[in-house]
């Protein structure tokens, strides 16, 4: 953390809620270089030999520990692809906080493509939090194209919270998961786009064995001229439960395409899908205005609540 400058510290605070060096394991990456690392008795972090990323190994039975791996880019024109692999040992219970903040004041595009793979061992539980944030007033774009692959072994579970509220010009996020017996996957995605931003979110969860469940809920707001595409697919190859929900608010000239899909390949696969897109309900605005808010303040409150 000592090696970070003011802008980088601000980005880290945005994406990882970190204001000082965290407890537990961490790996900070700033402008494509390692800016700090700490391992613990149970959590090891190693750079890959070819220098393309890191391997994070969590020992079986590790409980109540956390790993922070924030990435910040504050130089204009940086473009990087990073491969991070997480090996989560059996019966462990950990929190992983990732996130990327880009500050681009220059005229060249900055791009970070993080490819994360999670190998979650039997009976393990992972809570994963990922925030994306952009700032800076240069006309270079801030681009993030994360790919997340999740492999859930028998009886394991993963809860993923993915948030992108501000400042990312273009994002294409791909999340794929495979679930074995009794595994559970919960994805909560929150997205807001402004200006001319575009965001594509592709989620594909395949349930391979019985008793597993996948629940994917996306809440998003598209403002100004921004565009979003939400493409969530759950495939049930065994007796299982799957649910996707896409709930969106459009404002101004915003556009959203929701393409949910379900594929049941087993007669006992129970899959549900809900999707709703619409502008803020007039009566909600009216109610808050009768409480003394202006129309703009009312909109802000409704959106903040919706994305909370």
């Amino acid at each position, binding site marked *: 953390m000592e090696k970070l400058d003011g802008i980088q510290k601000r980005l880290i605070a945005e994406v990882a809620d970190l204001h000082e060096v965290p407890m537990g394991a961490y790996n900070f990456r700033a402008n494509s270089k390692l800016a700090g690392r700490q391992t613990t008795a149970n959590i090891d972090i190693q750079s890959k030999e070819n220098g393309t990323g890191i391997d994070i190994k969590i020992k079986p039975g590790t409980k109540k520990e956390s790993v922070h791996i924030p990435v910040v880019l504050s130089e204009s024109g940086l473009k990087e692809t990073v491969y991070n692999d997480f090996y989560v040992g059996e019966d462990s219970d950990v929190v992983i906080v990732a996130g990327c903040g880009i500050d681009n004041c220059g005229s060249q595009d900055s791009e970070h493509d993080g490819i994360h793979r999670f190998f979650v061992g039997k009976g393990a539980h992972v809570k994963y939090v990922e925030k994306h944030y952009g700032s800076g007033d240069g006309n270079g774009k801030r681009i993030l194209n994360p790919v997340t692959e999740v492999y859930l072994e028998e009886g394991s579970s993963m809860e993923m919270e993915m948030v992108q509220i501000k400042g990312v010009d273009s994002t294409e996020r791909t999340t794929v998961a495979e679930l074995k017996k009794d595994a559970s996957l919960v994805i909560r995605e929150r997205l807001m786009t402004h200006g001319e931003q575009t965001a594509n979110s592709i989620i594909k969860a395949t349930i391979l064995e019985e008793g597993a469940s996948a629940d994917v809920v996306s*809440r998003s707001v598209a403002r100004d001229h921004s565009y979003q595409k939400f493409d969530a697919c759950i495939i049930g190859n065994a007796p299982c439960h799957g649910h996707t929900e896409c709930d969106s608010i459009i404002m101004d000239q915003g556009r959203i395409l929701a393409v949910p899909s379900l594929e049941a390949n087993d007669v006992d696969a129970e899959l549900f899908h809900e999707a709703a897109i619409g502008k803020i309900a007039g009566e*909600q605005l*009216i109610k808050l205005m*009768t*409480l*003394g808010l202006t129309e703009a303040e009312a909109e802000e*409150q*409704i959106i903040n*609540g*919706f994305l909370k």
Partner: protein
Amino acid sequence: MLELKNVSFSVEDGGQLEIVRDVSLTIEKNKFVVITGPNGSGKSTLAKLIAGILTPTGGQIFFDGEDITGLSITERAKRGIGFAFQAPVRFKGLTVHDLLKIAAGQEISVSNACTYLSEVGLCAKDYIDREINASLSGGELKRIEIATVLARKTKLTVFDEPEAGIDLWSFQNLIRIFEDMRRDIKDSSILIISHQERILNIADEIVVLEAGQIRSVGTKDEVYPQVLGTEAGERMCFGQAARKEC
């Protein structure tokens, strides 16, 4: 405090449909006024005209001497008009605490927010962090609506059928709430739309609306004999005779 001068409201519905017709009405300060009348007589429409949700197609509205006919909902709210909806609105994501904060116009502590909830008979700790979404029952929602209006402490508060959907807890408590409001907010008045005899009984003044027009105004003793036996009287649930049919 509030004066309606020849207020009308009509909508384009094939032809012109006049929902409120030439209504003139004055509500003095420190009054408890009840508007009653059959379903569809224009009561909610009148309340929305007062709150600024609808704009009159004719006539003027004055509040504390100021012509507010052209003012927005927000401006009227800021001048001290509160409105509790007949059918409260749900919000995905906003919690009861959030809404009470907005209503109070400032940060309010959990214990303060809880005071308002207890007022309406809700166990505060169970509700304070609940989202105001489809998971709340109709009666719970209605009580929360009343709590948000209480938190505003407005000079004139309009309640549109506050008792609807509320169980037996209601009457004594609801009436106590109204009385407390009048005591605690200096020179305040309350305007309630209601069909309930027990609410009509405590009114200083009753306004009977029928087909968008004021049929009569006066105290309970003045109004009852006039409306009993009329269409308005029969379709309202007041008076022993009428009640049997309801």
